[in-house]
């Protein structure tokens, strides 16, 4: 393999061990060379950063292990750089200076595993709450999954200091565009956002820990499905694929097609939901109602196929649980035809609503360079000219047998991200029709599945919001040893402060929403004016009104 030869040529004396699969390279290096080799992979080989995983491998070999995962999209290749650190002195060099995208992942490892990254530019807490005591690390194996009594300490999050003339506009702790409690702190100067900080993970649930501690292999798809309220199926598919790739399980072709069909149905309803919410934020409620009305038949189709409109519960390791018969397939095709017609009418008419277009054109720009530096994914990346789509670059399920277009826009504004999603809906309709047309006969679940202990599994899927990574190490007794989930928003959220800088306050809701988080009506915003010393809490309606009055 060309890439591996390059790597070995460059770092011959440092690479201790490597392992190759058809689309994976795992190399183990000394921790001191880690920044150099990561930077080489990121800058010279043109790889994009995926995530970092910290694993407590003390029961296996007495070490903490860090895996940095990179993806070279054009070659369908994942490069995993592993390095170990002694638990007595858990310190290792940070790669953030060369790869800013690793910021969050390293902070998460510092929080949860207690490995300190030397030279990290921003070693504040990310995942753990402020009152969590120092020195208690939930992802270590000696921390029980059901342990509850942690002594809390009084501590405040160290936000950045306010400069003269700035005032703070906190958005949260419930976010105007997300279901989850998340907190953006905007630093505003005369109505213009000069800086933004993010403090989230208010609902970190420790799903990974529960899965490692309590659940068996075939129970995890159901908890994986509940990671996200909209794109759950892509998570359970990704988990199952990771196990299937680790344990070399071949799944029947028909199951792959059924997964593809469900994934695309999910993408359609997720994008339509987002489109509706975005138009609602901009004050165009007719469009919002239109999108949500044509979305409803898609939910009914999901219910018809899987037995529920959300949380389909279809995936098991080795295949799917329910088949799509002729009758169902005809109904899907009929409804999709209807959807295409209605959505076409919608997209043809949308540009004539000038007040909507004026609010999203040249707003919230994320340039290609920053996008690459932060390794953003999905429509956020494609709207900024980064041509990446897991379905095409790392083909999985039935995507290898189906051809489709990947829309890419180079403007990087909210409009570009909107157009990417609009075009993807049409592509998804084509994919489903093609898949239903060419679905092969046969069984839907593999039989005689055997799990291999202590092997690596890595899988990526294209969720509606972008690339979704599951990394796992299998364990003994029907349990996984470590399961790491990286949802797409994890890579996209750090880009929001870059988009917000220099924009008007009233544009903040749509910019934050443009990376496609979900909307919650219970959100509220507090305005704190330091000069006048007044605090005013706006309800979500008032905030949206403010957003709509603008321009």
């Amino acid at each position, binding site marked *: 393999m060309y890439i591996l030869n390059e790597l070995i040529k460059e770092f011959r004396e440092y690479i201790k061990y490597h392992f190759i699969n058809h689309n994976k390279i795992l190399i183990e290096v000394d921790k001191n060379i880690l920044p150099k080799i990561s930077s080489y992979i990121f800058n010279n080989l043109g790889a994009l950063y995926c995530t970092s995983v910290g694993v407590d491998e003390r029961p296996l070999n007495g070490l903490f292990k860090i895996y940095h995962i990179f993806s070279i999209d054009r070659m369908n290749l994942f490069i995993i750089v592993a390095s170990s650190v002694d638990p007595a002195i858990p310190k290792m060099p940070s790669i953030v200076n060369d790869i800013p995208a690793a910021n969050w992942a390293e902070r998460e490892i510092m929080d949860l595993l207690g490995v300190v990254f030397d030279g990290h530019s921003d070693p504040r807490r990310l995942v753990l709450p402020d009152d969590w005591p120092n020195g208690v690390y939930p992802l270590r194996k000696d921390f029980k999954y059901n342990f509850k009594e942690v002594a809390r300490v009084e501590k405040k999050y160290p936000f950045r200091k306010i400069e003269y003339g700035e005032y703070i506009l906190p958005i949260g702790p419930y976010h105007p565009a997300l279901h989850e409690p998340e907190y953006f702190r905007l630093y505003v100067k005369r109505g213009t956002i000069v800086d933004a900080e993010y403090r989230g993970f208010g609902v970190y649930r420790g799903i990974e820990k529960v899965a490692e501690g309590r*659940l068996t292999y*075939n*129970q995890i798809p*159901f*908890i994986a499905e*509940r990671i996200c309220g909209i794109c759950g199926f892509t998570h359970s598919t990704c988990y199952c694929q990771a196990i299937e790739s680790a344990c070399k399980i071949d799944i029947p072709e028909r199951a792959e097609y059924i997964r593809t069909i469900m994934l695309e149905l999910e993408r359609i309803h997720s994008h339509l939901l987002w489109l509706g919410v975005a138009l609602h934020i901009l004050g165009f409620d*007719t*469009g919002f*109602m*239109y999108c949500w*009305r044509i979305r*409803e038949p898609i939910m*009914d189709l999901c*219910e*018809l196929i*899987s*037995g*529920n409109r959300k*949380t389909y*519960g279809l995936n098991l390791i080795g295949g799917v*649980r*329910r088949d799509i018969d002729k009758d169902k397939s005809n109904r899907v095709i009929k409804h999709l035809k209807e959807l295409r017609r209605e959505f076409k*009418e919608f997209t*043809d*008419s949308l540009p*004539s*609503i000038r007040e909507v277009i004026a609010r999203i054109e040249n707003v919230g720009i994320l340039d290609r360079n920053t996008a690459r530096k932060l390794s953003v994914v999905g429509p956020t990346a494609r709207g900024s000219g980064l041509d990446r789509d897991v379905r095409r670059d790392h083909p999985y399920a039935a995507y290898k047998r189906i051809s489709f277009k990947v829309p890419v826009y180079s403007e990087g504004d909210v409009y570009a991200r909107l157009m990417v999603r609009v075009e993807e809906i049409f592509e998804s309709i084509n994919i489903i029709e093609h898949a239903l047309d060419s679905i092969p006969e046969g069984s839907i679940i593999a039989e005689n599945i055997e799990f291999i202990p202590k092997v690596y599994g890595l899988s990526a899927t294209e969720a509606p919001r972008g690339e979704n990574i599951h990394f796992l190490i299998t364990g003994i007794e029907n349990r996984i040893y470590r399961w790491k989930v990286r949802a797409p928003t994890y890579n996209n959220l750090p880009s929001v402060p870059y988009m917000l800088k220099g924009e008007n306050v009233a544009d903040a809701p749509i910019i934050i929403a443009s990376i496609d988080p979900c909307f919650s009506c219970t959100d509220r915003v507090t305005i704190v004016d330091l000069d006048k010393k007044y605090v005013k809490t706006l309800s979500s309606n008032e905030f949206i009104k403010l957003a709509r009055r603008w321009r």
Partner: protein
Amino acid sequence: MGRSTFLKKAIEVGVVTKRYPYTVVEVPDGFRGRPIIDGDKCIGCCACTAVCPPNALSAYEDDGYRIIRIFYGRCIFCGRCADVCPENAISLTKEFELTTDDPNDLNYIIKLKMVKCIICGRYFDTERHLKKVIENMKEMGLEIDTDILMRCPEHRNLNNASLIGLRREFK
């Protein structure tokens, strides 16, 4: 095409929101609603409790009875219990309106009579499950002494070489 399209469409389609809960909402066949256990078919083998991802299904012993309990407050309606049930005793209904002001409504309980171990007097299995074991053994051409069958797993293992009267009868 343009602004008028939206207006025309809005007038043409009208109100699509259903007047729920004042109207009945139809769900398709195969809907995964409230799971129920057929008390006549259940043998108390506990396969469902082992597979249930959120531990909504549990089994415990109460005064000579094995209680199989579904707690709908935890149930995620995945239907894995129905998949694995060897007797097809569990089925998913089309009911989805489970809101209640009494938490006891969220429990579904099956009571099955248990048998005592003839050595230690401990309740160890349900009557129906033991009957099923005998049936299955017969199908396989095996016969088992009731003396051994009525022992709990620990006492079956003791001196099993001399006690087990397993005889394979070739047909």
